[in-house]
Structure formats: C-alpha cells, structure tokens
C-alpha cells in the first residue's frame, strides 16, 4: 500500500476514534513525562559534579590528592613538575566555606589556584584572572551565586566562614554563562591560591596537584607520583570525584530509576487501556485488509503508522510535560551529598535522556498497536475477528497463574538469597502481579456472586456479569491501579522505613552530647571543616557547663568510596550508637573503641575490604594507622559507608589536633536552650561557630534526610495521580462506550438509579481488586527494597509492614477515581432505552 493511501486511511479511521486516540496519547505522554523528568533529575546531579570537576581539571588526567583538609606542602609541586613526562602540574587548595552576603548565605567550595591551572584548559578558569589582583585578595563568584547572597559589585565584601574563622574578601568579578557555560550553577568561589592559603590559615599548603602527563607518559607519571606520595597522599585519576559521587549517589539513582520505570509502566497501561477501546475497530481493519488480499507485512505497516503517529505526538507532549515536571517538581536537591561533593543546581538534559524517554514511548505505542500480532500473522485472514481460545479460557488462566507463581517464587528467592538483585526482583514482582491479577479478579467476582445470592438486588449480579463480559478491559484497568498502588506502597513503605532508620541513627549520633558547637554552614552536621579548638577551656568555665569534649569527623577516600569518619570524644557516653551495630558485641566494641586502636566499620566497607571482627588493618588516613575491627555497623545514613573511632585515635590518624565540633555536656537541670544561649554569648558573633542543641542538630539531620529522599515521595505521589487519572479516564471511556448495552438493560426494565449503582459497583470492584492486589504486592516490594537498602547500601532501615500506608494509597486511588467517575457514569446511566433499538 502506498504511503499516501495509508495516511489517508489513517486519517479516515482517526476521525472515527479521535477521543480514544487522545486518551492513548495522554497515557503515553504521562509515561514519557515521568521517565524523562526522573532521568533529568538523576543525570543533573551526576552531571553537575562532573561539570564542576572537569571545569577545574581540564586536560589533567592524574592528581596527587591530600587525605585531609590540611593538605600537603606546596613544595611538593616542584617535585611533581620535575618528574619526567609531566607536561603541566597545577596546584589547588580547596576548602568548604559558608559564603555570606547581605541577602543570604550559601555553602560553597572555595577554590584557590594559580595561573598554571589555566594551562589545563578547564572551562571554569579559562577566562578567570588567577594572579593576585594587585596584591589584594579577592574572590570571583558565578553570577547567580553572587546574586543570591547579594554581593554583586566590584569590591563589595563577601563574608566567608571557614574552619572556625570568619573572614571577609572583596568581590573581584562575577562569572557569566557565556564564560563558563553550564558551570554557572556551580556553588564555587574562586580566588588566587595565595589568598586562599591566607584565608584558610594553610600557608604554603595545597590540597591537590593536577597533572597532565605528556603524550604516552601516563603510566610512567603515575608510577612516579605513587613513589612521591609514599602512602601518605593519594594518586588518583583526575575524574576521581565523579567516580566517588557515582558510588555515593548510586542507591538513590537506582531507586529513582526503578520507580520511574514503574511510573512509565503506569503510563503505558494508561495508553494500553485507551487502545483497548479501539481494539474491535482495529481487529475489523486487520480482517478487512487480510480478506482483501493484503499481506501481513502490509497490515503491520498500516498499524505501525498508527503507532508512529501516536508515539510521536505522545512523546512530544510527554517531553514537554516532563520538562515542566523536572523544573518545577523534581528538584535535583543534593541534600547531604553536598557535604562531600560540590554540586550545582544546573539541569542537565542529555540526548540519552531524551532517547530513553522517547524510545520508551514509541515502544509502548508499538506494543499496544501490534497487540493482535498473532492474528495478523495467522494463516486465517479472519483470525482477528473469529472467536478463539483466548484470554478468558480456563487453560490460559491456569497457565498465567502458574507463570505468576513462578515469578513470585523467583522474587522470593531474590528477597531471601540475593537482595542486591532488587531491580530484577521488582521486575519479577510486577510480572507476578500482572499475571495473578486475572485470578484475583475471578476470585472477587466469584465472591461477589456468592454474596449477591444472599440479597435481592440486580445490582451486584449485573455488575459481576458485566465485568465477566468485558474481562480483558477490566483486567487492563485493574492492572493500571495495581501497578500504581504497588509502586506507591513499595516506594512509600521503603521510604518510610528508611526515614525511621535515619531518624533513629540521627538520634543515636547525637546522644552523647547536649550541645554542638561547630563551624557554621548548611551542611556542616556530622562532618565539618576542622578548626583549632582554642575556646575549649573558656567554654568549660561557663556556668551550667559540665564538660566540653572535642568531636572530630571528616571524609576519607577509602577504595572507591568517600567514607564518613565519626569520632566522638573518648569519654562520650554512649560512645557508640549500639542500635546501629549490625554485628559484634556492643559492650565489648564500646570498651575496645574507648580504649583506642579499635574502630567500627560499616558492613559494606568491611565486606569490600574482606575484613572481619578482630582483624587488624591499615586505614589510608593522612598518617596511615593500623586499627582492629571492633564491630560492624550500618552506614549511619551515609551511602558510601561510615567509620567510628574515638576522637584521640582520629587525631593520631589525621596528624592533627583540630576539632570538628565541641561537644558540650550541661549540668543536670540546665535546659539545652539556656546552655546554647550562654555559649553563644561567650563565643560572640564573629566566632564563625554555630551553637545548636543536640535535639536541633538531630532535627537538621532528619530534615536533610527528608530532602534527599523527597524525589522518591514525589514520584510515588505522581504515580498515584497518574493512576487515578488513567483509571478514571479508562473507566469513563469504557462506561461511555457501553451506553448501547446500558440501553439494552434499560429496555429490560432496569431503571437509571439501578444502572448507575451497577456502574459504580463495577468501578469499586475493579478499583479494589487492582489496588488491593497492588497493595499486597507493594508490601512485598517494600520488604525487597528494604532488604536491598540494608544489604547493599547498609542503610539503617527499620523493617515494617506499612499496612496503613497501603490502605491510604488504596483509599486515595479508589476515592479519587470514583469521584471523577461519578458524573460521567450518571450520564451514561441516563442513556435513552430507545438507543438499544438503533443497531
């Protein structure tokens, strides 16, 4: 068939089923939008870290990296430059800081560099002046950041809180998008190296040296750098930060990806439901074309035109909708990851993201359109309209139920044996859910029939009969609700279990102090910029203060992970959050860690390094130290893993007596707020230190956890929303299309009210079957997700069966869909009985 004729044929058919096609387009658009928005959100975080990293390192491929914030002597630069094969070596001194202006404050990465960095060609510094600005220290800020804090004029002071100091620096210039491209959204402040050394009190020190080897000299330079590092510095690829971030954000990204696939599936089912409305016409078309002598190939080509038209319009609409969602709803908030990585807020839309979302949409359209493929390829030209053993046959039903059981057994095996394969497990669960749904519907209808026998009313009988009569469509609609509620319950459940675990971990890691005194900054909670603890004696003398301990904490690059190290004062009680220990004797571990030379490692780290309790090993700290493993813990909420030791051991291993915070214990009877005020007063306004009660500190930790997990909640809510719309639309269309049959029932004498009740009962049954089955499988999915979070990422998850959440989702979907359906079904029930005689 000529393309022009196929197009004409499509146009003619489209006119006859425009509404149904619009539903299908909406379904595809919803799936594409959710897939696109969540992908953009994931990719944006990773891309932001990558852009900033590449914007600085340029063509460097290796780096010599300090293991602590104090860096290493700048004189090492000369040695690096002298190594054979080194083409360019550029020093950097980086420090976390809190930038404050008249309009607000922002956590930034302060980057000190000299003119040699430009030779590496990084976008961020290519057009930035890095020589001291006429002997006056000054900083350069990206324009949006400068605008946010309100420091935009040349020479205007920006206040920087860093390492327990508060300093000011004048603004030299702003960086604009034309200069640095997408890095415009990076939270970074750039200044000449010497100035940053002065600000941070790290004179003649650098935190890393970027190295660009000459062509072919990569291996040679790497070996030479290893020798130079002598086990006290790290030699890593220049994109090391990207690798570490990928590891740190993997859990969140995986869960987001999984649930965006579930949301896409809901969208696809929405489209599939809409397509079912046109199945009779499409089957008739297939039979007509085959009877008239067209080959199966031509029939497929004609139907593919439908798929292309649907897919293109659906994808275009979905991408536009997804763009809006990613801008207004799916914020790429890095939350607590910001304490270890400099992450901007620029959205990254890659061609891969567009391709995945569009590919998904086109696939959904093709599968839906070509669903009668077996009939198209059949030898019998009229197979598409001839009755055959199909969906409703007992044999097919048994086969489906058996296949569903096999999937369920597979998912259970994964849950019990290999929870790290959570994604295949979830896919198996979804498959089992879809395969068992017809059984659930049959069982429900049988139950309804049984119950209906006890009462005198046509409503339940007619509802059960109607659902039996339109079984394929009923299952498609129920499946939409089932998948949506499954996703929502699994996501919400795992999310809540994780939050409960994180909340408890936050409470436990704040249990050993009454008041925290630590460098100010939005993400300075457990890990902070270290400072010289000069005020300890002063604080101890304050009335109401019982004791002041030094708390130390930092990040350590250990293998492929940027690990959080927590070191409470040796005398802290409790020294270890025993509820967070997953293996080992808590009392013995506490005693050992208090005595020194022992530490607690999160289980994933121990597994990765093949360590067991009691084993001695060397930790790659700035002053490499040998520890023995006292116990295993969860990751305390930090995805890459955590280490706990006492603060004295930390000082030894890091070769520094700097503290990360003061832990202040108050005299019994002194309220935390009184203690906080007294300490704030004693420190004065320019200390650069923030004072918080332990409760408030834990509260901020909890708030950060919630921000980090917000995207999952958003996706779960959106899935429910799409499901409600999808089900209401599909059921509404189904009811409307059934008007001639309703007219026939009216002809038999069933009044409007009875018909309306019947339609609503049908809807309730469908919604309840779908949502209840989805909720049951969702609770199973929650256990699978929980197990994966615990065993793979070591998150402090508290297992639960959130039946209440499941019930909430169920009531929400059923209630909302029914509310949307009430009016159309009333109008459908008002169909004139005479319509029955018009066929």
């Amino acid at each position: 068939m000529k393309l022009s004729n196929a197009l004409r044929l499509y146009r003619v058919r489209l006119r006859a089923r425009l509404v149904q096609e619009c539903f299908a387009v909406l379904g595809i658009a919803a799936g594409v939008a959710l897939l696109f928005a969540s992908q953009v959100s994931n990719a944006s975080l990773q891309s932001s870290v990558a852009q900033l990293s590449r914007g600085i390192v340029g063509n460097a491929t290796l780096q010599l990296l300090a293991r602590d914030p104090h860096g290493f002597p700048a004189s090492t630069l000369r040695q690096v430059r002298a190594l054979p094969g080194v083409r360019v070596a550029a020093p950097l001194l980086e420090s976390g800081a809190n930038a404050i202006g008249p309009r607000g404050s922002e956590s930034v990465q302060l980057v000190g560099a000299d003119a040699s960095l430009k030779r590496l060609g990084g976008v961020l510094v290519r057009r930035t002046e890095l020589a001291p600005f006429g002997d006056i220290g000054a900083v350069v800020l990206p324009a949006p950041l400068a605008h946010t804090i309100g420091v935009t004029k040349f020479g205007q002071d920006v206040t920087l809180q860093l390492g327990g100091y508060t300093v000011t620096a004048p603004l030299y210039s702003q960086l604009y998008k034309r200069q640095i491209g997408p890095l415009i959204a990076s939270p970074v402040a750039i200044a000449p190296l010497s100035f940053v050394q002065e600000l941070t009190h790290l004179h003649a020190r650098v935190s890393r040296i970027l190295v660009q080897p000459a062509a072919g000299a990569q291996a040679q330079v790497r070996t030479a750098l290893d020798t130079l590092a002598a086990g006290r510095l790290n030699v890593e690829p220049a994109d090391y930060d990207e690798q570490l971030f990928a590891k740190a954000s993997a859990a969140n990204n995986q869960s987001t990806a999984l649930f965006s696939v579930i949301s896409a599936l809901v969208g696809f089912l929405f489209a599939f439901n809409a397509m079912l409305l046109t199945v009779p016409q499409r089957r008739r078309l297939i039979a007509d074309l085959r009877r008239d002598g067209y080959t199966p190939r031509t029939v497929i080509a004609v139907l593919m035109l439908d798929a292309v038209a649907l897919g293109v319009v659906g994808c275009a609409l979905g991408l536009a909708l997804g763009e809006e969602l990613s801008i207004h709803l799916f914020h790429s908030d890095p939350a607590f990851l910001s304490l270890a990585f400099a992450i901007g807020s620029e959205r990254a839309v890659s061609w891969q993201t567009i391709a995945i979302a569009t590919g998904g949409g086109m696939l959904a359209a093709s599968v839906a359109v070509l669903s009668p493929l077996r009939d198209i390829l059949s030898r019998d030209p009229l197979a598409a309209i001839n009755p055959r053993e199909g969906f409703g046959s007992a044999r097919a039903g048994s086969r489906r139920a058996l296949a569903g059981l096999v999937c369920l057994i597979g998912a259970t095996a994964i849950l019990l044996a290999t929870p790290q394969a959570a994604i295949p497990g979830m896919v198996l669960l979804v498959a089992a859910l879809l395969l068992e749904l017809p059984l659930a519907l049959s069982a429900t209808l049988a139950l309804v029939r049984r119950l209906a026998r006890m009462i005198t009313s046509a409503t339940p009988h007619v509802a059960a009969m109607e659902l039996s009569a339109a079984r394929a469509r009923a299952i498609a609609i129920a499946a939409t609700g089932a998948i949506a509620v499954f996703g929502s319950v699994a996501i919400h459940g795992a999310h809540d279990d994780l939050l409960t675990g994180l909340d408890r971990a936050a409470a436990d890691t704040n249990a050993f102090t009454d008041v925290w005194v630590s460098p100010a900054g939005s993400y300075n909670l457990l890990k902070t910029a270290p400072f010289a603890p000069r005020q300890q004696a002063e604080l101890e003398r304050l009335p109401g203060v019982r004791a002041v301990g030094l708390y130390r904490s930092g990040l350590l690059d250990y293998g492929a992970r940027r690990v959080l190290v927590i070191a409470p004062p040796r005398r802290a009680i409790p020294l270890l959050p025993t509820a967070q220990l997953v293996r080992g004797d808590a009392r013995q571990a506490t005693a050992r860690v208090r005595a020194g030379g022992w530490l607690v490692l999160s289980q994933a780290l121990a597994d990765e390094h093949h360590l067991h309790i009691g084993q001695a090993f060397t930790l790659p700290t700035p002053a490499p130290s040998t520890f023995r493993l006292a116990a295993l813990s969860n990751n305390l909420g930090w995805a890459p893993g955590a280490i706990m030791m006492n603060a004295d051991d930390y000082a030894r291993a890091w070769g520094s007596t700097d503290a990360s915070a003061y832990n202040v214990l108050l005299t019994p009877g002194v309220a935390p707020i009184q203690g906080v005020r007294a300490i704030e007063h004693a420190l004065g306004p320019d200390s650069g230190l923030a004072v918080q009660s332990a409760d408030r500190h834990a509260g901020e930790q909890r708030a950060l956890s919630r921000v980090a997990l917000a995207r999952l909640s958003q996706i779960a809510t959106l899935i429910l929303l799409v499901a409600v719309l999808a089900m209401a639309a599909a059921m509404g269309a189904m009811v409307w299309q059934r008007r001639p049959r309703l007219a026939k029932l009216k002809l038999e004498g069933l009044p409007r009210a009875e018909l309306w009740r019947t339609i609503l009962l049908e809807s309730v049954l469908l919604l309840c079957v779908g949502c209840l089955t989805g909720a049951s499988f969702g609770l199973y999915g929650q256990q699978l997700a929980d197990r994966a979070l615990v065993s793979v990422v070591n998150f402090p998850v508290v297992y639960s069966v959130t039946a209440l959440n499941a019930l909430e989702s169920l009531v929400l979907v059923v209630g909302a869909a029914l509310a949307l359906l009430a009016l159309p079904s009333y109008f459908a029930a008002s169909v004139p009985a005479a319509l029955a005689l018009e066929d």
Partner: protein
Amino acid sequence: MLELRELVKHYPAVGGEPVRAVDGVSLHVAPGEMVALYGPSGSGKTTLLLMIATLLEPTAGAVLIGDRDVSSLSEREASRFRLTELGFIRQNFDLLPGVSAIDNAILKLLKSMRWADAQREITPLLERLGLEQRLRHRAETLSMGERQRVMIARALSTKPRLLLADEPTGSLDTQRGREVLELLQSLCREQHVAVVLVSHDPMAALYADRVFALRDGRLSDHETDQLHAPGQLPLSG
C-alpha cells in the same frame, strides 16, 4: 389486554410537513393472542413498538395495558412497567458474553428475588425451551437458535402481560426460525401473554392469530386464512 387508541407519532421536519411515522393506529390484542405486523422499512413499525414499550411518548392517542394508559408514565414507572409487565425480544441477542445461559436468562428476575430463587424459577422455562443441557454454557458458546431461546426465557421470566418481538427470527435459518415461532406461540397461549410480533419473515404469519400490514404509519387488516404459504405475503418487505 393491549389496546392502542388512535395512536399518532409525528416528527417535525425542517421546512416542511411533519413526518407522520404512526398515523392513527388502533389495535386490540387479547391475552394469549399473537398479532403479526408486516411492513416495509420506514413504515413506522419501530416507532410503534417504541411507543408500546413506553420508550417514546406519542403525539396523540393512548397505549392501554388493561385499563391503564402507559403512554405517559414517569421514567421510574416506565422502567417498572418494562421490568414486570413487558417482555422484549429482538433480532440481536442482547446476551452478556462470558456469562452462562441461565444467568443471562434471570437478569430481569434479580430485581425482585434472590439469585437461587431466580434460577429455580427460570429453570423449568429453559427446560421447556430445550436448553436443559446448555444452562451452564457461556453465551458465546451457544448457537444462534439457543441464544434466541435464552432471550425468550428472559423476556417471559417475569410472566409479563405483553410480549414485543422485533424480528425474532431475523438471524435464524428456516428450521430454527420455525422452532422459535412455535415456542413463542405455545408459551404465550399457555401463559396468556399478548404478543405483538414485527417481522419480515413470511413464516411468522403462519403462527400469528391475526396479521396486519403497516404502510405509511397506517394499519390495515389481513385475514390469516388468506395466507397459504411462505412467500405469498403481499406486504412482506
């Protein structure tokens, strides 16, 4: 039992005379009597049936069932009338696919009795219709004749006073058509049901007590004894 008094239905026409679909039809059908109506397309047969079935309000005249005029019932009363006093059989079998023959047949009874009672009530009728072996078979597995018999069972399930049959043999072969007409005739006589049968099938006249022709909305009498064999009906369309 059924009495049509000067029944009129006019449809307004744009810029012209109103269309006289039914134009002063009077007819009396006694309990147990079967009346056949013949007429070409557009003669007003369907309009007449719609008015009798309370689905269309007449422009003038009355439809009396016993002494009650049903031509202007409220929607609720009309539904009640169709449910309890009227049976309707059509050429297209309005059976629910995926549902058994017996469950399809008890549809009208469910309003007033429990499922088990309804099944008990309908079973003798289905057996009488020769469906005793097919009670639990799903609608789509039944033959055309069986489906029509299920429809007859449903129509007669509430023991209606009046049965309307619109082309009841239209989808059946001659043998099946004859069987259905025989059943209709004997059941209606046994149950004293007045039957109005609209058909193109000449054979229907052989089973009807009286035969009428409908042309341009007007009714004219024809004696059944004038009809000798199928195909000789002067008004069959």
